């Protein structure tokens, strides 16, 4: 059994910043990630972030990952890569499989920054090779520099769908269609503008995918118009030649480990599904267990970066590494930045939802001693 003061599970933006804040204050922290390298989904983000300078505006996602990894490595963060955390036992013991062996890691505090997984929709042919998640397409194209096909149909026109469409053009592929059931494109204007107004991407709003067709893999898809009840309208079917169907229909928090850790949760459609209850310090109902980033509600990488910092500062505070005078100040700074990030129509909606979840936490969860436990 390995002992750590804090174990952080997930090395994406939230896990990296949580580890950085902890290591900066000399906390003994392990960062566990199942991939070959840390960085999470930032590694496949080729677009520039927007917002303010402190949120890395103007820097591309994969460069932000590089910066954070470099910073963490310069500190004393103990990286445990290619380690899959597959179970959580009592007293914050994690079972981590690396290669063929399992190691047990016990920690005084655990931060789950396990991110999100892609939602899917089902239709005839959806299991054919060639139907894949938008995240998978981004991974292959931007990270491994391989196109999983030549002609793509993208289902969903939210931020992910439109960004992937644009990135496919950049990589030299053809986008046969972006299919969106709603009447309008769902993404931020800036992404829609780049992708759709390039003129190379046919957009079918008020349409849905009916079927993916092919013997061994996808050759074509059938799409159809939808009525006000989201049902396909007979006679409006169109066949589109395509060899990859890219599903960009949303993300849900990846909560398997938080469930195993006994964290209570609540459903939130705004935040992608089941969300672990958490307080203003990112602490869950399982005392000493924190969440940060998409697992605490699907939002954006810049939010994950700040939530990771907040969870890190909170865990360091509860381990007495930060004076009680200074910790509230430090947390407030981060909360203020989170407030700024959650501006705008969509941001405000998410801010209200987070507030609602904190309310439920306060109502239902009795504060355990552990939130103030001393080492």
């Amino acid at each position: 059994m390995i002992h750590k003061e804090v174990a952080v599970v997930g090395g994406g933006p939230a896990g990296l910043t949580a580890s950085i804040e902890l290591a900066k204050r000399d906390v003994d922290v392990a960062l566990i990630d199942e991939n070959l390298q840390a960085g999470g989904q930032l590694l496949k983000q080729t677009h520039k972030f927007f917002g303010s300078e402190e949120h890395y505006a103007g820097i591309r996602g994969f460069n932000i990952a590089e910066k954070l990894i470099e910073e963490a490595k310069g500190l004393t963060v103990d990286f445990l890569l290619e380690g899959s955390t597959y179970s959580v036992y009592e007293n914050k013991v994690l079972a981590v499989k690396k290669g063929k062996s399992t190691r047990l890691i016990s920690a005084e505090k655990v931060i789950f920054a396990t991110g999100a997984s892609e939602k899917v929709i089902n239709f005839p042919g959806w299991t054919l090779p060639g139907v894949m998640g938008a995240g998978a397409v981004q991974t292959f194209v931007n990270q491994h520099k391989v196109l999983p096909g030549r002609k793509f149909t993208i289902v969903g026109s939210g931020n992910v769908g439109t960004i992937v469409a644009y990135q496919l053009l950049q990589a030299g592929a053809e986008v046969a269609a972006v299919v969106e059931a709603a009447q309008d494109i769902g993404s931020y204007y800036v992404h829609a503008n780049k992708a759709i107004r390039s003129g190379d991407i046919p957009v079918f709003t008020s349409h849905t995918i009916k079927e993916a067709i092919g013997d061994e893999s996808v050759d074509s898809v059938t799409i159809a118009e939808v009525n006000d009840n989201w049902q396909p309208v007979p006679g409006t079917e169109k066949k589109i030649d395509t060899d990859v169907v890219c599903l960009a229909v949303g993300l849900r928090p990846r909560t398997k480990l938080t469930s195993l850790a006994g964290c209570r949760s609540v459903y939130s459609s705004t935040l992608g599904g089941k969300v672990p209850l958490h307080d203003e310090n990112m602490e869950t109902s399982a005392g000493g267990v924190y969440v940060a980033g998409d697992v605490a509600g699907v939002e954006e990488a810049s939010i994950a970066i700040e939530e990771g910092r907040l969870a890190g500062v909170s865990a360091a505070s509860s381990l007495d590494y930060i004076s009680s005078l200074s910790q509230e100040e430090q947390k407030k700074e981060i909360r203020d930045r989170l407030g700024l990030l959650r501006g705008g129509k969509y941001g405000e909606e998410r801010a209200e939802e987070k507030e609602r979840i904190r309310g439920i936490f306060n109502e239902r969860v009795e504060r355990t001693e552990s939130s103030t436990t001393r080492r």
Partner: protein
Amino acid sequence: MNGVINVVKKEQDLRVKDHPILKEGSARNKVSITVEGKEIEAFEGEPIAAALLAADISVFRKTKKRKDPRGPFCGIGLCTDCVMKVDGEPNVRTCITPVEDGMVIEKQGSTEVPTNDT
């Protein structure tokens, strides 16, 4: 992006080149792997699934009962749809397992398919 590509170029190289943003990076070692008895070129360290997709291989396995074709779906090791037999070991997640020179990769036989698979 002025009005490019409106035909499916069957011969188009699936490796991304001349990307406006992604750097070329340091030259990677070319290695050779065997897939279903056929030798293909790959880059050392890239996921097996990436090497197969670049070689225009999209069917990675067949399901146990219905023999339905399956290929990569999540690309990050979660869904297990892309599992293959690698150097004799079944159920290897090809999307997160790096290529090594001389690897022998096969589609799985029905006995090695996960039991809950249809």
